[in-house]
């Protein structure tokens, strides 16, 4: 079990971010330092911005495409690729939907499939911390 603090990027805004690194086996590239990722229980899957995918040299050729609908009903066009998620001292293969239409301030979104199915997460905004336990069964 690990505890992570909330982040304050601007006044009165508290974000459940955690630092993660993302790698790509095919190119042996990994993000140059940990990046803030949003833990988002409202997302069905994990998302990654195209800017990170470009750095990792992920090609969109022949990848499965999928269109998501956001809360305001706009469309989010993505393609799917397996990346390596490095989090909490561990790493595992994680499917990410990659898009250049993600908001810039959330380049990585950790959702139900890929993150919540691997961890037990407790949000404690009152104490400004998130408790994350890696689920060994997954």
């Amino acid at each position: 079990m690990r505890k992570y603090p909330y982040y304050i990027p601007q006044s009165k805004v508290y974000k459940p971010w955690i630092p993660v690194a993302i790698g790509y086996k095919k190119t042996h590239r990994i993000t140059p330092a940990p990046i803030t990722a949003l833990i988002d229980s409202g997302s069905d899957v994990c998302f990654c911005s195209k800017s990170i995918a470009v750095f990792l040299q992920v090609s969109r050729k022949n990848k499965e495409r999928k269109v998501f609908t956001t809360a305001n009903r706009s469309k989010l066009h993505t393609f799917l690729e397996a990346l390596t998620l490095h989090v909490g001292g561990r790493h595992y293969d994680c499917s990410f939907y990659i898009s250049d239409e993600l908001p810039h301030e959330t380049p990585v979104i950790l959702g139900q499939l890929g993150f919540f199915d691997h961890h037990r997460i407790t949000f404690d905004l009152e104490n400004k911390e998130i408790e994350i336990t890696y689920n060994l069964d997954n």
Partner: protein
Amino acid sequence: MKAIDLRSALKSYSTGWVAINKKNRKVVAHAESLELLSEKIKGLKNILLVPASKNYFGFITSLRA
């Protein structure tokens, strides 16, 4: 636990990426792309990368296929 306050570090940046020293919360580099930023932070330790934005509030996800 104390929240990590990045207000001071982020206030001068609105685009691109910011590299922040995790210990003293000071910006060590900024660049528009991860590629450029990675060159600037080569060899540095204890760094956290944060996307720079004018506004981090008012964000709703709930994305469904």
